[in-house]
């Protein structure tokens, strides 16, 4: 059943790598932004919130095109990044950026909910016991929100794994470099007789996504138990 060609295995491995790196890099920023949105009031908060959620509602091709304008070799950020040796366009690193941007709303949304669910009275208690804000966050807020943070990361990983529109627009569909599972499936459906191979990749994509959702759900349930001190 799973007799994939080396190119297809490459696409699967690349997808996993892109999704993992995208999640790892966006997680610290996601936690920081989620904490800001959950716990702070500041001018421009509504705007920040809207910008973060934008990739969720924009057509992915639009997000990809905007990334191309900004991070392409001649883009404002892209030209600067190239001068320090980082090239994103048509590289797997660009796929990482596209996946990170596309999955960021899910990541922030889940983490924000879990931070909001942490009782602020416990944070107050920590500060009366001598914990400054950073220690309060590290010893009370973060551990209590952790199951939700992990669930959010798993969701973001699954979303990154399935990313297609923004990625193909930004970094194209280069086998071995930017051709993820989704792009490989797309390519196979474009050639005569490719359906059978495409179906195998579809099965893999479904399996990985399903597994991610089950893991995410499991951590979500643990979050409740943990906050209630069981």
């Amino acid at each position, binding site marked *: 059943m799973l007799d994939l060609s080396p190119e297809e295995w490459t696409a699967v491995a690349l997808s996993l790598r892109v999704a993992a790196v995208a999640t790892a890099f966006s997680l610290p920023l996601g936690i920081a932004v989620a904490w800001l949105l959950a716990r702070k009031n500041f001018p421009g908060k509504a705007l920040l919130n809207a910008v973060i959620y934008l990739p969720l509602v924009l057509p992915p091709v639009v997000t990809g095109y905007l990334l191309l304008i900004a991070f392409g070799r001649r883009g404002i950020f892209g030209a600067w990044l190239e001068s320090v040796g980082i090239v994103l366009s048509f590289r797997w690193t660009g796929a990482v950026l596209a996946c990170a941007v596309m999955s960021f709303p899910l990541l922030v949304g889940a983490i924000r909910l879990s931070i909001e669910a942490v*009782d602020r*009275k*416990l944070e*107050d*208690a*920590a*500060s*009366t*016991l*001598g*914990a*400054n804000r950073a*220690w*309060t966050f590290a*010893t*009370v807020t973060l*551990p*209590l929100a952790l199951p939700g943070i992990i669930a959010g990361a798993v969701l973001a990983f699954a979303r990154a794994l399935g990313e297609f529109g923004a990625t193909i627009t930004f970094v194209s569909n280069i086998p071995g470099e930017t051709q993820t599972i989704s792009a490989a499936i797309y390519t196979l459906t474009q050639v005569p007789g490719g359906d059978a191979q495409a179906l195998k990749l579809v099965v893999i994509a479904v399996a990985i996504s399903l597994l991610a959702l089950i893991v995410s759900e499991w951590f979500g349930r643990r979050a409740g138990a*943990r*906050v*209630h*001190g*069981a």
Partner: protein
Amino acid sequence: MVHDVISVDIDKQLGDFALSVTFQGDSGVTALFGPSGSGKTSIVGMIAGLTKPDRGRIIIDGETLFDSNGGINLPAHRRRIGTVFQDGRLFPHMSVARNLNYGRWMTGQPRDEAQFRHVTDLLDIAALVNRRPGALSGGERQRVALGRALLMKPRLMLLDEPMASLDARRKSEILPYFVRLRDETKLPMIYVSHDPNEVKALASRVVLLDGGRVVNSGGVELLSH
């Protein structure tokens, strides 16, 4: 004149409610007594450093924690006030032992086995240290919260209706611990309550509050009539 251990003079506007109180406390137990809505818990928040008064001064043991004129507002984590809340607020993800040690860790104090044993014996919580807060009864939880506050070696204990969430039987079980705490630790305490029996059993000084003002203050005999 004997120098007051506790000197509080604060104003705070909370929506329609204007809080304006001035009181002093000695090295014993100062009770803030009044009906719910009299501003007791707001005062606790301001002494603990969790909310900022609009104006005034809070001086504990000669150190100014807050002074609107001098621009002083020591953050809560540097006030060293052992605060016990009505709802305990134990950290649910830590064992009782870790809860007890939390304040000592955060204030960077070395391990003190003798002190730990003394406090856990005083409060009869030595047998609970490996449990999780979720597995404790209400009275046990409050005793652990008391121990946690004591073990940070505070300069003042601030007790905000620590028995209000307990039923009458549990209250009578836990009251003796507060008496022991008062007699053995010699820490100045602010004890907030709306129960005259608790106040009579514990306090050396009573501050009567109503509608955000101090209506009277003096000895416990204030509650006799």
